[in-house]
């Protein structure tokens, strides 16, 4: 087992491409990994490629983890259709993966600010009250019903405040949508990738697609910086780079314009009960420049309060920065909805880059120009929620392009997951420590992550080989000290297990070393001192 782990790790660090594959998926985000996993239900010879050092390195690691219901989407769009259907499919989608999914619901809050002043000015107080208390909530419920969203219910002001006591007392009414769910997007992506690997897929990272070989209008192969894979089927799930990959095949025609979203994350010890469901302020359609769905306040699966995201058009597809203006905007926006939110308990801030097209709808199509090339592009929020339905739609194309319709009899429906020490009871903890004492060695003091869990992440089916990879799989460094205690511990374990000096351990792959040499290096003769 240990040798197998070592081989896997060696292969992971220095991958060799197969000469051919039945299908190649470009992009190891949630969509790419979910499609690959689905393909393995029918055949095992599928390869997932990504240029980053891990799966889920784009928008899949930096979104708000919400499985929307579709209530926020425009009627008649592909987005809304797939969102509503995807939400319903979610329990089956995550079954067997060992990933937590819970439906915490969404509370849509109606306040006087839900309506623009130019409308309220013209109204008498009674008329306005009627609008806010009755017409808007009932309108939301009717809108949902028309889209096939069940279970929406109107709440009175008292019910709103009882459900979420931290919401602004200006709340007039609300709508509760029980369909909203939470899932950790990068854990789900990792689980899907591993599930695909269990069933024969190969996930090859640090490998950039540089071209698509097309002959006589048919896909023949994928060209990368490590060589070429011959294939007749390519799924383009390259996120913000999907337009570029489509162009490589001559199967483009859409343009991705990156739009950044920043989110603030709070200490879960302080905020675990701050909001129980997702909470969003209702705004009358057309009230603001609709750049995103407006975001909200929501817990993570683990109980950290999140506020965001923002929506800022950016030039650079790599722009995952967060600006002072965005931080200010989030604080201002949520100061109204949740007047007492604990500003001082912020422990992290992150940005992701959305991948919208100018049409702002999903582009899911088998190319008419290039046979064997399937675009899954323009996937932004609610992409996470829509994933199961997107996969279903893509499989429709792939079956038409030669993926067998009969499921494999040997498909393994489960992916074993590593227990989390923090979530076990004392009896379970004792049993694990008896079996392997490294279950008793706490590496991360905030999240109570053990050495055994870190080792499991490094020796997993899609091995973690850098600090962020270990972090996403185990939560090391995600707590209030942000790696102050565990940083050097995790780095030492990575160095030991990867068989590299600790000075070669990185935060997130090439170019991100944690350390710039050893102490005294700069003082040795022959080395120029900077001073």
């Amino acid at each position: 087992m240990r040798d197998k782990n070592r081989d896997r790790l060696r292969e992971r660090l220095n991958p060799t491409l197969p000469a051919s594959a039945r299908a190649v998926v470009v992009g190891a985000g949630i969509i790419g990994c979910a499609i690959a996993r689905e393909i393995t239900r029918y055949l095992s010879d599928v390869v997932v490629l990504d240029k980053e050092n891990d799966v889920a390195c784009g928008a899949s690691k930096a979104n708000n983890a919400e499985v929307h219901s579709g209530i926020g989407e425009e009627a008649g769009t592909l987005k809304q259709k797939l969102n509503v259907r995807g939400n319903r499919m979610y329990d089956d989608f995550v079954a067997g993966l060992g990933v937590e999914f819970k439906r915490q619901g969404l509370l849509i809050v109606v306040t006087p600010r839900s309506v623009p002043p130019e409308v309220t000015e013209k109204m008498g107080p009674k008329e306005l009250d009627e609008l806010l208390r009755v017409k808007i909530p009932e309108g939301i419920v009717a809108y949902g019903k028309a889209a096939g969203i069940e279970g929406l219910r109107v709440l009175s002001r008292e019910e709103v405040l009882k459900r979420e006591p931290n919401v602004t007392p200006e709340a007039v009414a609300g709508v509760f949508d029980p369909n909203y769910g939470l899932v950790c997007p990068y854990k789900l992506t990792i689980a899907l990738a591993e599930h695909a690997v269990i069933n024969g897929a190969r996930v090859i990272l640090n490998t950039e697609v540089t071209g698509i070989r097309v002959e006589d209008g048919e896909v023949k192969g994928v060209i990368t910086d490590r060589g070429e894979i011959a294939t007749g089927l390519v799924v383009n799930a390259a996120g913000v780079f999907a337009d570029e990959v489509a162009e490589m095949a001559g199967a483009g025609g859409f343009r991705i314009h990156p739009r950044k979203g920043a989110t603030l994350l709070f200490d879960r010890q302080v905020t675990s009960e701050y909001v129980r469901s997702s909470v969003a302020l209702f705004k009358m359609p057309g009230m603001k420049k609709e750049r995103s769905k407006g975001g909200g306040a929501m817990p993570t699966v683990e109980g950290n309060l999140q506020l965001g995201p923002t929506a800022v058009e950016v030039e650079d597809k790599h722009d995952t920065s967060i600006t002072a203006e965005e931080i200010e905007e989030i604080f201002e926006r949520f100061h109204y909805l949740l007047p007492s939110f604990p500003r001082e308990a912020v422990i992290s801030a992150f940005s992701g880059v959305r991948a919208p097209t100018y049409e702002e709808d999903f582009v899911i199509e088998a190319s008419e120009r290039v046979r064997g090339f399937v675009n899954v592009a323009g996937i932004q929020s609610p992409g996470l929620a829509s994933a199961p339905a997107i996969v279903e739609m893509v499989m429709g194309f792939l079956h038409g392009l030669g993926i067998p319709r009969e499921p494999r009899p040997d498909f393994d429906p489960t992916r074993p997951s590593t227990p989390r020490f923090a979530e076990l009871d004392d009896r379970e903890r004792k049993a694990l420590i008896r079996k392997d004492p490294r279950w008793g060695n706490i590496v991360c003091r905030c999240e109570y992550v053990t050495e055994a869990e870190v080792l499991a992440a490094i020796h997993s089916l899609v091995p973690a080989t850098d600090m962020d990879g270990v972090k996403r799989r185990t939560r090391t460094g995600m707590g209030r000290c942000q790696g102050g205690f565990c940083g050097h511990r995790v780095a030492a374990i990575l160095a030991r297990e990867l068989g590299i000096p600790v000075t070669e351990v990185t935060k997130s792959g090439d170019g991100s070393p944690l350390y710039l040499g050893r102490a005294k290096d700069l003082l040795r003769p022959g080395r120029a001192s900077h001073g």
Partner: protein
Amino acid sequence: MGKARKPDVVVIGAGPAGLGAALAASEAGARDVMLIERDVELGGILPQCIHDGFGSIVFGETLTGPQYAQRFIDRVERSDIEVKLNTMVLDLRPDRSLTAVNSRDGVLEIKPRAVVLAMGCRERTRHQVLIPGYRPAGVICAGAAQRDINIEGLMPGRRVVILGSGDIGLIMARRFTLEGAEVEGVYEIMDHPGGLTRNLVQCLHDYDIPLHLSHTVTFIHGRKRVEAVTVSRVDEDLKPIPGTERLVPCDALVLSVGLIPENELSRGAGVLLDPATGGPVVDERMETSVEGIFACGNVMNVFDLVDYVTHTAEVAGRAAAEYAVHGARRRREALAVRPGRNVRFVVPQLLRGHDREVYFYFRVRHPERAVRARLVAGGMPLAAKRARMVRPPEMVRLRADPEKLGEAVSRGGLSIEVMPEDREPGELSGKVAPEDQEPESLEPEDRE
């Protein structure tokens, strides 16, 4: 579930506070003292503080951090204190029972008679001060950088910008320089330095490292590794002034932006915390709001001097032993000791008894010259000391003897205040208590 261990006293954390408390408890007659430390060795942060300046009050000489720690470690090794290294306390409950875990013993259920909280503090991180920008490798807290260099022998940066001029930031500016790294500058958002004058001279001035007051880092550049930071001047409200941005190329940003007492376990046990200190509210015996749970050192508030930490540890350890041996006494009603003029907080916050001398520790709100710090009861000053200068980074301590405290308790209405020296004579007319034995200069030695 195995049988729970029932020691007299459990001390959580084996830094200077925990070491001192465990020793004091043991020496005061507690039979069975258990010292729990999550790290691989004793001493807390001290082993990485290889500069000197520790111990001038406790030992009357200045030592390095490791030397200071070793004096306590040697005593612990000669004692019958049970040391549990690599052991994490997972949960502390209001009945003082606790759960800990390590590789050797597995899950430990412990029901001590008394508990001493000595978990120390942690560093404020980049996101807690909300520095905008990317999230590359190379953004590191000063204490973590100190550990990397002094313990691990690793360089977290070669061309360094330091944000924050607290002592640890200043000490690291010198440390990086001595390692041959380039320190581009130290940036401080306030208009005055956060650290001691001596450190400004010995760590910055002596090495020609510039200190930029009223400046902060407003953007971190570099997707993978820090490539540069943008620094900006700030206005009186500490807001960056547009147009003052300057791009500073560097490969590491070292943060010295504050320390936070570690009270996650305290909260779990229902210990009342003081918003002003971030630590438990304690009485003169360092007992928290939960009977039998005591606190000492940086878990209460961040001290500037390890000597003070040791002192509070001795008080807490002795009191925990008394509690464990003699059992709970009827708790007398507590009198609040309130922060008065130019005082931000006072520790201990409460006074119950007056059977022993008490040192009150406090910080001022703003710098002030030629002052008199005093304990006041019912408008009457009872204990006082003079200082040429008081500054927020430097803790002040004021001693009160049992006699004065007795008077204070009978008068009630306790507070500690800092008054300008020149107002004193007319107001006080000879009622000032004699100065205690401390040196008049309040400039303490290096913080850890």
